[in-house]
């Protein structure tokens, strides 16, 4: 087929298209996250002291850093779906934000927590459950971001997939944080990071396979 006949085929019966809007896509992700959080809390699993979050620097740190990371990573992921976006720098920025959140966790440990034995602080049995929960809670957002990525035109799909995974992991961790009973920053840093990293790795492995420009 010649270029001319291809152009004639493509331009005949041309239907109008709805332009991609990052604001609309961001709204969709936010709405899905809000619905997921509402359904999760409707199960009655929320920590009883969440209403007094203002009085606990640890809870403020956990919810604030996870919320900020989720918002920043979602914005970065959605922006990276544009063909002209350069997501490498954004992924590094999200990594720096996560590192900053981790470092700041050292200053918010409740009294007495730091005196416990390391294994008690990390509590691997609960931690694995926590990381698994984060992974499962991140799946809806990951599915939505994957669908948005397929519909868009990222020219660096591996980085876009990684950004989507970080965003979905941060959203899952944010939702899970409402019920997590542990008050140790070390526990949060270790297991939440493992949960988010697992989601990011799964997205990085799976999403580019389903995408072709």
């Amino acid at each position, binding site marked *: 087929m010649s*270029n001319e006949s291809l152009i004639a085929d*493509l331009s005949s*019966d041309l239907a109008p*298209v*709805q*332009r*991609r809007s990052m604001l609309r896509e961001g709204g969709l992700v936010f709405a899905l996250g809000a619905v997921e959080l509402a359904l999760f809390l409707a199960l009655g699993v929320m920590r009883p002291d969440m209403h007094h979050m203002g009085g606990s620097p640890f809870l403020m740190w956990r919810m604030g850093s996870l919320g900020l990371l989720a918002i920043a990573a979602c914005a970065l992921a959605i922006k990276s779906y544009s063909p*002209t976006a350069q997501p490498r720098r954004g992924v590094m920025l999200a990594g720096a934000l996560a590192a900053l959140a981790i470092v700041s966790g050292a200053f918010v440990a409740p009294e007495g927590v730091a005196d416990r034995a390391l294994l008690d602080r990390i509590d691997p049995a609960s931690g694995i459950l926590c990381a698994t929960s984060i992974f499962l809670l991140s799946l809806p957002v990951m599915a939505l971001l994957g669908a948005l990525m397929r519909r*868009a035109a990222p020219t660096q799909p591996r980085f876009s997939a990684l950004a989507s995974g970080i965003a979905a992991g941060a959203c899952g961790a944010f939702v899970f944080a409402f019920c997590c009973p542990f008050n140790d920053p070390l526990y949060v840093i270790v297991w939440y990071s493992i949960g988010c990293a697992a989601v990011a790795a799964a997205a990085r492995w799976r999403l580019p396979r389903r995408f072709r420009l």
Partner: protein
Amino acid sequence: MVAAQDGHGGAYRRLLAEMSEWLARYFYRRLPPGEVDDAVQETLLAIHRRRHTYDPQYPLGPWLAAIAKNKWVDQLRSLARRPMDELPDVIAVGDHEAAVISSSVLASLLDELRPAQSQAILLVKVQGYSIEEASARIGLSPSAVKMNIHRGLARLTAIIEKTPDVE
């Protein structure tokens, strides 16, 4: 493009015709002549499928260049996967301009590779020697030559992916 997004077929046809000329020039500098038409058509199809992703607030050039570069990388990957054919003894010679530019771009890209990789790619992919002939000339085993070609092309693809979209 905005008119095309709104379903205006005539404007879209004119736009695609202009884009196809630009794409032909773009790919002539970067691909073997036999691959140019395929690359242009693949890119036109991608533009058609993803036309809703163009944001009218931004210029069209970078959007088009980003998609073209992505298709260029795809084409290089498919070239690397394709089995190598022997070149015929007699090859028709046409306009040299595109070949000269390609050669200049290729030479600067090959400079980025290890000498063994660039030599293997130059002999087999550019000058048309068989793997056995190239291995005899370089003094490496045929499997080492194949490995150098494979790794060299992968490295070239990575280098190209990192370069900014500048036409």
